[in-house]
């Protein structure tokens, strides 16, 4: 069922039904983003949604904003140019875990380092969805993928730790089960003057689910519920207790001069002003 609020932001033209599998988490995340935008009463003409390539990256086409579906991993690089050319735009980047952390990993860390204002929402389904279930840089150790039939021997990235270490000023994590938290994080992130990152943990029943013995979507969502620990609670838990779990909520919130603002100041200096 599509809510009235959602319908307002969907493209009226022929783009439905969508490409996502039944039970996929990406739709829930799209809902949270749209509700946050609606609450903020942002002008649709000033919103740009940019994506790379993958199931997640198909999101922009459905939404009635300025939408840019770029090449695999490059959404942040396209966005950097756009933001410098038009600093007044709100840029929301939606990207898969492979898009963001494998092929786009370099752009990810450098966008965070520069602290250019945009909100990056990384949909982490622990796998490459669009290409059919290959391992990604976030596939858990020993989990299965079509390119790791004997179990993944690589260590996964922690997307939020990576974002914080690289310089993002606002970092949070939520799951599809915790969609209200997700909406709240997006709402706050969109108001930050700098580079914000939200990791949205999502189920990919078609590939990650099947390859890793989840019986159905409900079981996958229950896994999210059972293993997510709110930040406050996690503070009181030992590392043994946190083994195999992950924190959700706001993980990092600081302020730092924003890149396009700094550039505008530099421009004034170049022109002989203050």
């Amino acid at each position, binding site marked *: 069922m599509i809510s009235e609020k959602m319908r307002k932001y969907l493209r009226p033209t022929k783009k439905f039904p969508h490409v996502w599998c039944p039970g996929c988490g990406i739709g829930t995340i799209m809902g949270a983003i749209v509700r946050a935008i609606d609450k903020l009463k942002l002008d649709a003409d000033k919103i740009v949604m940019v994506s790379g390539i993958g199931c997640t990256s198909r999101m922009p086409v459905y939404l009635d904003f300025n*939408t840019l579906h770029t090449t695999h991993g490059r959404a942040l690089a396209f966005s950097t*140019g756009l933001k410098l050319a038009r600093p007044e735009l709100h840029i929301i980047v939606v990207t898969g875990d492979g898009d963001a952390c494998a092929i786009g990993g370099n752009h990810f860390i450098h966008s965070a380092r520069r602290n250019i204002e945009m909100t990056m929402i990384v949909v982490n389904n622990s796998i490459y969805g669009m290409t059919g279930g290959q391992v990604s840089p976030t596939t858990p150790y020993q989990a299965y993928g079509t390119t790791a039939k004997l179990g993944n021997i690589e260590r996964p990235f922690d997307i939020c730790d990576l974002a914080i270490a690289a310089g993002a000023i606002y970092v949070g994590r939520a799951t599809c089960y915790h969609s209200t938290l997700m909406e709240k994080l997006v709402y706050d992130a969109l108001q930050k003057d700098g580079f914000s990152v939200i990791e949205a943990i999502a189920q990919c029943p078609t590939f990650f689910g099947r390859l890793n013995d989840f019986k159905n979507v409900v079981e996958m969502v229950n896994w999210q519920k059972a293993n997510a620990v709110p930040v406050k609670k996690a503070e009181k838990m030992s590392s043994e207790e946190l083994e195999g779990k992950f924190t959700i909520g706001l993980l990092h919130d600081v302020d730092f001069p924003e890149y396009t603002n700094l550039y505008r100041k530099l421009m004034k200096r*170049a022109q002989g002003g203050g």
Partner: protein
Amino acid sequence: MSGAEAIASGAIAAGLRFFAGYPITPSTEIAEILSIKLPKVGGSFIQMEDEIASISAIIGASIGGAKSMTATSGPGFSLMMEGLGFACMAEIPIVVANVQRGGPSTGLPTKVGQGDVLQTRWGTHGDHAIIALSPSSVYECFTITVRAFNLAERYRVPVIILTDESVAHMRETVVLPQEGEYEVIDRELPTVPPEWYLPYDRAHGGVAPMASFGSGYRYHITGLTHDAHGFPTSVSEEVDDCIRGQIEKIIFNLDDIVEVEQLYMDDAEIMVVCYGITARAAKEAVEIARSKGIAVGILNLLTIWPFPVQLLQTITEQIRVAIVPEINMGQIIREVKSSVEGRCKVVGINRVDGDNIYPHQILEKISEVLS
């Protein structure tokens, strides 16, 4: 002034407002100069993390309405192929200066080469059309850069300034044209109400007006094959229109796009087909040959892609031999041969040791073909 400075000045004159790049010899001067010039005129400069990011950023800025460019050399140009294809597909105006150096891979960073001619044409995957211009003097670095922006804006296509280490580093005393003495073309913006806007409409000469993001026209841009709205499609007729349309908008406008300098061609029996730095050597050689009464002329390819096939076909009615000097093992010579279809003999002069082709080499070849 150097060729690199003239390219930077030409870009600003044409209305450049955004540059993203990654340092690489021998193109770096262009970035360094623009990092100073751009903020003065209210434009932005950014050094990106690599060349893939650089070309992506300029496409993004162009979508925001800013005339945008990057500059690089071979290794970086290879990394830019992905973005180049996106700009062709999504029909986003951008300008890329490729200051060629020698050899494949890291090659010969500080010396000249012309080995990227075919890569410029076919380096990005899939059928597409592209425009590439090649200056052979400091003055032309300026005028060709202005033209590169004008063509990019008019045809919504990436335009490559295919230059080389020698031209970019060459210093000449030049008087550049003043504002008003050259034409500056801006992309056409939509005037219809947003709900009527079709970003890929082919109805009016094959090139639709291009709205900037944030200007009230909300639409979709993708590297997937798309319909006139910009939405992804795999419907045969729409796919055909998408791909064929991108190519036809260029090949149906060759008169406007193709620019060739012809010297001493009226009565020529031998012609030297050249571009970039080799055109300098060719001019000197031909002047000497003419002073000796040899009927030789020059065809300097200021537009290198699309290749002037028709012009060559008509010219070669009178030509016996075409000499093609190139600082590569023979790239544009393939186009010359296929264009003349055996109507004249075609011979190359090739050099890949990092040095230029000199007038005496061309003169020797002229004597050789005469004997």
